[in-house]
């Protein structure tokens, strides 16, 4: 299959001048990067057509983690399907729960209590931080820096402790559910969260010192895998990848869901080199910008969490009737801002409890499609830099 796919694609160097190719046209080699490879973040397989260290073409092949997640959704009641959404983007379970919950609530007309909405936003943002921490750490690992990974996981463990205290799970939470959240916050939760935020916010500077502004790291990532704003929009990229290309688009601001319009926060976008302390070699839309946008987003998430903690109202944590909901004969498509981009759920009801169609728009799936576009003509070592900066989760990509 891969050979056929490769044959039908044009040679990226075909149009270039002969002198740029060098005198000797050397032998090309097909290399399988993955599905078992340390830099592919799961079971992604990239077929590389290489000329020495130069990558002529990088074709992503997906589907190794396909578990029929959408089909399962068409056989279960929505509240039963919530645990399956966890398993899609397993690094951002809260956000996935939230997206599906909102879709069902809008479809079935469930009113979510205000406290539940605050808790949801707080947990979604905490999970965004946790997810970006993994992205940050593994990106360092891709670049050969081991220590940032451990630092990021140290802090992520604390977030997971908080999650565990609230819902008992550390990875697949199923905490945000139809109509609210499964349990109210435990005692002292906000106190401990406050302690964590005080600890965590200075750590972001530490990460930047250690990795983001390290000269070697900047050299490795600046001007690598550049996606222009037009390309980003054309390839339907979303999330930090889109914003790193300089497009100011975030669903939390543009079409606020839940109660995001009540908070004051900024949308970090990719900056050109030389501005606001950004290294000179950086261009808008390169891997460095994709990395730093995530780090800056962590800071904005902290702001949102602090505001949510201040405004946290009292009240019930879940709507009165959430189970045995009859879904109307109607359809809905909603998108929310997942750590990786816009996660969309399309749900069609047919008057029974079980939706007749569930379709997911996964940000990783759409974002990875750009790999061949930006991965052609770079060096072999840039492929991990690009894949890592796009920050995919194969569970959600393959579903």
């Amino acid at each position: 299959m891969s050979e056929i796919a490769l044959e039908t694609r044009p040679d990226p160097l075909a149009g270039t001048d002969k002198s740029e190719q060098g005198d000797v046209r050397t032998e090309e080699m097909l290399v399988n990067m993955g599905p078992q490879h340390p830099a592919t973040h799961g079971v992604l397989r990239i077929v590389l057509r290489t000329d020495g260290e130069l990558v002529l073409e990088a074709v992503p092949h997906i589907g190794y983690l396909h578990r029929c997640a959408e089909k399962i959704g068409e056989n279960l009641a929505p509240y039963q399907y919530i645990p399956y959404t966890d398993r899609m983007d397993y690094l951002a379970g809260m956000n996935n729960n939230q997206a599906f919950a909102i879709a069902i609530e809008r479809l079935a007309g469930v009113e979510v209590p205000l406290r539940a909405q605050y808790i949801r936003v707080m947990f979604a943002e905490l999970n965004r931080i946790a997810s970006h921490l993994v992205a940050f750490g593994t990106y360092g690992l891709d670049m050969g820096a081991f220590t940032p990974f451990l630092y990021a996981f140290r802090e992520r463990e604390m977030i997971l402790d908080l999650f565990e205290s609230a819902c008992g799970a550390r990875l697949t939470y199923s905490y945000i559910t139809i109509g609210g959240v499964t349990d109210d916050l435990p005692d002292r939760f906000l106190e401990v969260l406050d302690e964590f935020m005080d600890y965590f916010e200075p750590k972001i500077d530490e990460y930047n010192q250690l990795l983001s502004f390290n000269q070697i790291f900047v050299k490795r990532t600046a001007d690598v895998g550049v996606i222009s704003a037009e390309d980003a929009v054309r390839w339907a990229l979303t999330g930090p990848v889109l914003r790193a290309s300089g497009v100011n688009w975030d669903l939390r601001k543009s079409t606020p869901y839940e109660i995001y319009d009540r908070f004051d926060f900024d949308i970090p976008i990719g900056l050109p080199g030389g501005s606001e302390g950004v290294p000179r070699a950086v261009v808008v839309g390169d891997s460095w910008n994709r990395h730093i946008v995530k780090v800056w987003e962590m800071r904005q998430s902290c702001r949102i969490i602090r505001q949510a903690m201040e405004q946290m109202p009292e009240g019930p944590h879940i709507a009165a009737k959430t189970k045995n909901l009859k879904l109307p004969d109607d359809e809905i498509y909603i998108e929310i801002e997942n750590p990786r981009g816009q996660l969309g759920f399309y749900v069609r009801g047919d008057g029974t409890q079980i939706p007749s169609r569930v379709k997911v728009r996964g940000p990783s799936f759409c974002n990875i499609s750009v790999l061949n576009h930006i991965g052609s003509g770079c060096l072999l070592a840039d492929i991990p830099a690009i894949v890592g900066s796009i920050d995919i989760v194969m569970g959600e990509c393959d579903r």
Partner: protein
Amino acid sequence: MTQLSVPWRPRAKQQHGPMAALVAGFAKALYATFAPLVRAFPGPLLIGAIVTVIVGVWANYLVFEFVDTALVAADTNVVAETGLFGGLLAITEVRAGLIAAGVPGAGTLCYLLYPLQYGLVRDVIGAGGLLGFISVIPLYVIWWERKVAGRIQSRTGPMRVGGWHGWSQSMADGIKLICKEDLCPADADRPLFKLAPYLAFVPAILAFFALPFGTYWVFREVDVALVFILAMLGIEVLGVILAGWASNNKWSVYGAMREACQMVSYEIPMGMALLIPIMAVGTLSLTELGDTQSGGWTSWIVFRNPFTFVAAIAYYIASLANCKRAPFDLPESESELVAGFHTEYSGFRWSLFFFGEYAAMFVVSGLCVILFFGAWYSPLPMSLAESWGLGDSLIARAIKGLLFAGPLWFVGKCVFLLYVQIWIRWTLPRIRIDQVLYACIQVLLPLMMVVLMGHTLYELFVPTHGLVWSIFNIILSLIGAVAVLGMIFIATYGFWNRVGLVGSLGVETLPGS
């Protein structure tokens, strides 16, 4: 049901050769004997071990120096007369020599030291000691690397095996590696695949045979020791490249090719950096190079003039590339090439690569110490020892050895440089192959050319110990002192002011309780 035959499934029963069983059994017995002891008395044993090492080193040193004195005093041209393995010296001659040297109790000593008269006996003892040292160094450098990495990453590193801070973790790993299956891919070039680890390991060991640990502490005094060691480091690369090629794995070939181009380019600035101390002293013999730096801190070649200072830094960078340590660990960069050249290796053969790598790390650090950082001399000048009037007694020699010069200082400095290598590895990301070559060809190479030329002119036209010379010497020595003291201060400060993790995040009451 038909039984499917899975071609790649390993056979259920592992076969162990007698040698492996012997080695593993020995190691297990050793572990079983010593682990409880170490668990029971960690502190006293540690102090005891250090004292034993120091006493042993000095006892050994004195014996060898004594034999040397005796042989010289016997007024016999050993080199010319004894041939390859040192023929037997007439015992009477030795006795006469000892008495002439004024050694008390010469007669008895003579008989005690009888076997040492044979060159072969001395060689076997020396080689045994050296091999022991070489096998222990990687084990403990690996353990230490893991501890340092743990501290850097706010972990603890190995803590369990052996009881005290996981002191025998590397030994346990070694036993595991010996007992592991020895795999060879079906499509590999089998003879080369099996040869490659030895080609990577043996030269690294051989390099130690010409590396002096002290004035009398060298297995073979070769007057071209430096060239010999460089040649051995070059052969080690050959093993790596053969391993990459013979594995018949595309990632391995990538690793091998990276190693080849990295090595071929970095050998040049490295060699040029090494030329600078050679030019300053005028010999290729490492012992002589080291002995010129006996005048304390300021006489170290690194502080001799600005050019040697730059050359020392350049050498250190090039040596990192040479023994493929981060940020130059491209041949085995696991995020790009799975494991690079050793992707297909397992068990004992795999561990040979690592023994080779850590031995090479020690060798390049040793070269750096000998050529730039005062070899086996302490920062105190030897003239201070003379002025104390200690005399020549055994105690005086031991004091001199501990305070002023000796293999312990050499090993200590090497370990410090190893520590810097580890520190760099666990801090910096890896650089890309084009940047590796750019840094070498566009930066290091021109820099070293300028430095080489500048150093030549400096040595020719600036009078040694003149005003200009002294000013530069003092300024550079101060910079070095401040740098080292600053490092120590920062490390101590950081250690005492460690920031703990936030207090318990556990929540008192869980929901629903």
